């Protein structure tokens, strides 16, 4: 195998059989994110829906006690797939997840490109996929904190407050759905963020791209839907596609009259495109034309 394809390998040393070279990258990424005060504030804001919905789980078992306060709203406090859909597909949660991606993710690759750190990374026995894995898992950590953790928390709280496993008996696939959606959201947002971060050496520019692409896709959906009244334009919006897939995976009613498989396909295509971008941009050496 040519040297250029091997990366740096310490021929005389012994590498561990079960290497996880992405671990230090993940640890560093998480540490750096938590160093910023703004990030802690944003993470706190992103957890608000978890608190609200957790309270909802509690109230759902105490409807009589809260009858006066929640008059008319009791149908929203039934903990079922629609409840989970309302949480996961809420504009608020998706918005704060985006902000977290901006704060924790916009500079993940952009800063390495600016400081020419990729050469340092790849001068170690680190493959490109280890590097990208490390970066992606940093983002997945935060995303799963906001998706997987609350989802399981709601199920556990429901079991505790109801004193029975009724919810699991009624919807046995719910934990799997929560896990599946969490992985889809984490995976998509990670690819999306890393690809846009790799497009520039300027973190600020990457931040604006992250925000602009997300909102622009939604605005375009709104414009074309407003003119042509065709739900197929849902496929233009990143947010709408995520909401469609969330509804489908959670076994709830979809938002739009568009097959959820199409939305999933759009997200998959975007993820593949992101992968292509990353494979071109993340290199050990820079080719200057």
């Amino acid at each position, binding site marked *: 195998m040519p040297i250029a394809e091997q990366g740096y390998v310490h021929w005389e040393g012994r590498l561990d059989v079960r290497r996880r070279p992405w671990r230090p990258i993940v640890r560093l990424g998480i540490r750096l994110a938590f160093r910023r005060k703004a990030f802690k504030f944003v993470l706190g804001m992103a957890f608000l829906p978890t608190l609200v919905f957790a309270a909802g789980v509690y109230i759902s078992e105490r409807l009589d006690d809260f009858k006066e306060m929640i008059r008319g709203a009791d149908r929203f406090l039934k903990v079922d797939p629609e409840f989970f859909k309302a949480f996961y597909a809420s504009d608020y949660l998706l918005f704060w997840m985006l902000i977290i991606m901006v704060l924790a993710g916009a500079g993940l690759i952009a800063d390495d490109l600016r400081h020419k750190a990729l050469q340092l990374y790849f001068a170690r026995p680190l493959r490109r996929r280890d590097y990208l894995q490390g970066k992606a898992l940093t983002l997945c950590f935060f995303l799963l904190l906001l998706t997987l953790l609350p989802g399981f928390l709601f199920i556990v709280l429901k079991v505790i407050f109801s004193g029975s496993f009724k919810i699991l008996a009624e919807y046995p696939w719910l934990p799997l759905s929560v896990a599946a959606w969490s992985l889809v959201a984490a995976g998509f947002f990670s690819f999306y963020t890393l690809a846009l971060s790799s497009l520039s050496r300027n973190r*600020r*520019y990457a931040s604006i791209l992250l925000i*602009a692409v997300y909102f622009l896709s939604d605005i375009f959906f709104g*414009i074309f839907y407003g*003119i042509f009244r065709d739900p197929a334009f849902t496929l233009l919006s990143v947010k709408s596609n995520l909401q469609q897939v969330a509804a489908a995976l959670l076994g709830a009613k979809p938002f739009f009259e568009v097959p959820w498989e199409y939305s999933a396909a759009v997200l998959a295509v975007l993820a593949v495109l992101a992968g292509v971008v990353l494979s071109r941009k993340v290199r050990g050496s820079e080719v200057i034309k």
Partner: protein
Amino acid sequence: MAGGVFRVLSFTGRLVRRARRTKVFAFLCLLPVILALIVRAKALASPGRGLDGLAIFGNIIVAFGLQFLILILALFFGTSVVSEEVEGKTLTYWTTRPVPKPAVVLGKYAAFVAVLLVLVLASTAVAFLILNLDRLDYGPAWSFLGKSLAALSLGVVCYTAFFTLVGTVLKKSVLFGFFFSFGWENIVQYFPGSTQKFTVMHYLKSLLPGVGETSPNVLQFLMFRLDPSPAWAAVLTLLVLTAVFLALACWLFGRKEYLFDEG
């Protein structure tokens, strides 16, 4: 001072023309044209359905331009006036020339605004032409275009000045700018009464055509809950705000020390 501003403007203009990301933002500014082409193509494909070009121009192109495009452009370019030089550690080259510090801020601001105005106004005008090819002899349509372009122009000028100030003061200028643009501006503009006057968007919308008319107009969407100010007051307020933002930015830039991250 004026000479210094012009020299900075000239050099910045050259730098902006060369920058790769200018091409990306130029593409972003083409979106109204692309939208207009798609709508026009769809109308041509379905000849039975009439196309109200002015309504689509007003409710979509102008709305898109005013509530998204100029905000994103002003956010990036406005904060770039100072932040980009600090992040790129090239600020030293500007501050070790015989050019007054305020001239650096004003010259760069002027260069960015000039580029943005060309991009935004050109694309908006082309989008208008595409959508209204069949009523170019309709006088009020041109007046509509003129007022819309005026609103967009003042939006570029005022928002860029605001974000120039933000970029001069704050390190996390993009995040603050984002919350301001898509939080404060997008929400408070719909508050009833005089609260909406605490947004720049209120004054921009007060300049739009058909403001204050009782009969429904093509900009119903944008006029939602708008309690418009008189046009002269809106223009004056926008210009005063621009002057204040720029004056503050110049003053702060002259007094502030910028330390580069050594990391």
